[in-house]
């Protein structure tokens, strides 16, 4: 089989260039998997901030265990080693391994590609390959299996694991790549520990915000969280609620297929937390606290805006802190775009109008997960003008997170985006 053809054929014509492309499996290099995206990225000069991508923390679990604060928990976590694939102390959820559609989506299964060892951390190399292929200027990373850690029955385990993950990320990974940022993990089942985490990283420039994994049964309006929200508001950094799924949740156990549970679950947790947030007047109590809702798509928003407005007008006595309709508070919030629903573009357009996407929507890829979006999820939308695309892809996030925009990408930048020097393209090794 031909893999290369000489350029000069017998008849004097230039022979065509032919090469063979590999089948993609779990060992395929990220740059090969995303080669088509890279071709697209080379054709434009968008400034892109990906506000939701993921590291695979379990691939580096021994390093995270080493950073646990207690020798007892370290020993417990290490004792799990060799007893199966689930890393010690992490709670797994039924269906976690269903995500790759049973081998159909290899990059979700495992990024088993070669990465040069040495001074650059493998996780950094993997992120750099994805960023460069997708044309992304900044990537905000979250954990993966830890997205369900909020369901762990032991609050202290969430604290130990969450803190160790934060240390690993800020000590070992983020310092090597200034284009990588994080919204650190808050062990939300333990409010005091959350406050400590906020204070510990308030001055870390790679930490551009804080996140609560939404998959949990905790009312975000509980009084125990008020010191936490005060502390975050004082830092000026945003608070994100990153949703997820949990098939062990009794409501979700009614779904017999992963597709059903997954489709509902990501919206379900954020719809509850956002409702509690609004109805209990959190935007009035913390007017300077910027809130982001991550990985629930957008289609739920026109529903909840209208639903809460309707009920509020009849039952305003139950939400006495509100001075405006619920939808007006929602319009002041930020939302990440992925997974962007696009099967009915009329509905998508109406949703964008409803949430003031021009200023409030933040592009997210969710790479390397199976339902990731590319920048073309935004650039291909026929109803957006060029400025709106640039805002959603990067300038809204630049303003929100106070990120520097390279000068040559400042085309039409508003929304508080600031320019200084371009972030280094070269990894900083330590």
């Amino acid at each position, binding site marked *: *089989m*031909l893999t290369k053809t000489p350029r000069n054929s017998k008849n004097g014509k230039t022979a*065509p*260039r*032919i*090469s*063979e*492309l*590999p*089948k*993609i*499996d779990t060992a395929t290099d990220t740059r090969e*998997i995303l*080669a*088509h*995206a890279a071709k*697209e990225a080379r054709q434009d000069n968008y400034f892109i901030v990906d506000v939701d991508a993921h590291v695979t923390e379990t691939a580096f679990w021994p390093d995270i265990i080493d950073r646990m604060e207690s020798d007892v928990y370290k020993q417990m976590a290490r004792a799990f080693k060799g007893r199966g694939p689930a890393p010690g102390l992490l709670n797994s959820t039924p269906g976690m391994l269903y995500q790759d*559609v049973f*081998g*159909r*989506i*290899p*990059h979700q299964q495992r990024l088993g590609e070669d990465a040069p060892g040495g001074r650059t951390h493998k996780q950094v190399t993997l992120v750099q390959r994805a960023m460069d292929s997708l044309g992304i200027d900044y990537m905000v990373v979250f954990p993966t299996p830890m997205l369900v850690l909020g369901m762990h029955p032991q609050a202290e385990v969430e604290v130990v694991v969450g803190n160790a993950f934060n240390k690993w990320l800020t000590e070992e990974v983020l310092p090597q790549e200034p284009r990588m940022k994080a919204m650190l993990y808050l062990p939300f089942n333990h409010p005091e520990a959350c406050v400590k985490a906020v204070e510990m990283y308030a001055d870390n420039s790679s930490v551009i915000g804080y996140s609560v994994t939404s998959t949990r049964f905790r009312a975000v309006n509980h009084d125990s969280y008020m010191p936490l929200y005060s502390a975050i508001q004082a830092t000026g950094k945003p608070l994100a609620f990153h949703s997820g799924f949990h098939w062990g949740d009794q409501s979700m156990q009614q779904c017999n297929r992963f597709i059903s549970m997954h489709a509902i679950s990501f919206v379900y947790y954020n719809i509850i937390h956002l409702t509690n947030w609004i109805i209990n007047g959190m935007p009035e109590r913390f007017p300077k606290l910027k809130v982001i809702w991550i990985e629930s798509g957008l289609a739920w928003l026109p529903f909840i805006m209208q639903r809460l407005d309707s009920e509020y007008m009849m039952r305003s006595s139950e939400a006495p802190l509100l001075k405006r309709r619920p939808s007006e508070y929602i319009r002041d919030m930020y939302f990440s775009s992925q997974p962007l629903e696009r099967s009915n573009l009329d509905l998508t357009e109406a949703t964008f109008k409803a949430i003031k996407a021009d200023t409030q929507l933040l592009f997210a890829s969710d790479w390397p997960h*199976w*339902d*990731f*979006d*590319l920048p*073309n*999820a935004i650039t291909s939308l026929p109803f957006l003008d060029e400025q709106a695309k640039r805002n959603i892809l990067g300038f809204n996030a630049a303003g929100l997170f106070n990120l520097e925009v390279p000068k040559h990408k400042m085309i039409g930048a508003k929304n508080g985006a600031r320019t200084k020097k371009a972030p280094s393209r070269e990894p900083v090794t330590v």
Partner: protein
Amino acid sequence: MDEISVGRLADIPDGDYRIFAVEQLEVGIFRTGSKVLAYENVCPHAGGPVCQGKIFNKVEEIITSDKKSAGLRFGKARHIVCPWHGYEYDLATGCHPGDPSLRLTPVKVAVRNGQIYVSMPE
């Protein structure tokens, strides 16, 4: 329309496939017996490298005469699955099983004297 040889039929085992970049065209060549089919290596969903994905037989649900589910089985239709997001396309038709309007772009391909020839789009 130029025809370009990408190699010998014998180099693709029966039921298997290979993917080539011919100048700017990326094309997947799928062999069934002595026949070949070819599709552009671009998923109509998001532009993914669909032909570089895996082949799975279509999953079917067995429904009994009293409309109960008797489980799942693999059918005969073979699907190429885009490795980016899992979009599946029937290899015989190029169509998505749930929306036939979403389909792979076929590429004209012929086998002569054991050689596979791809017609380059204008």
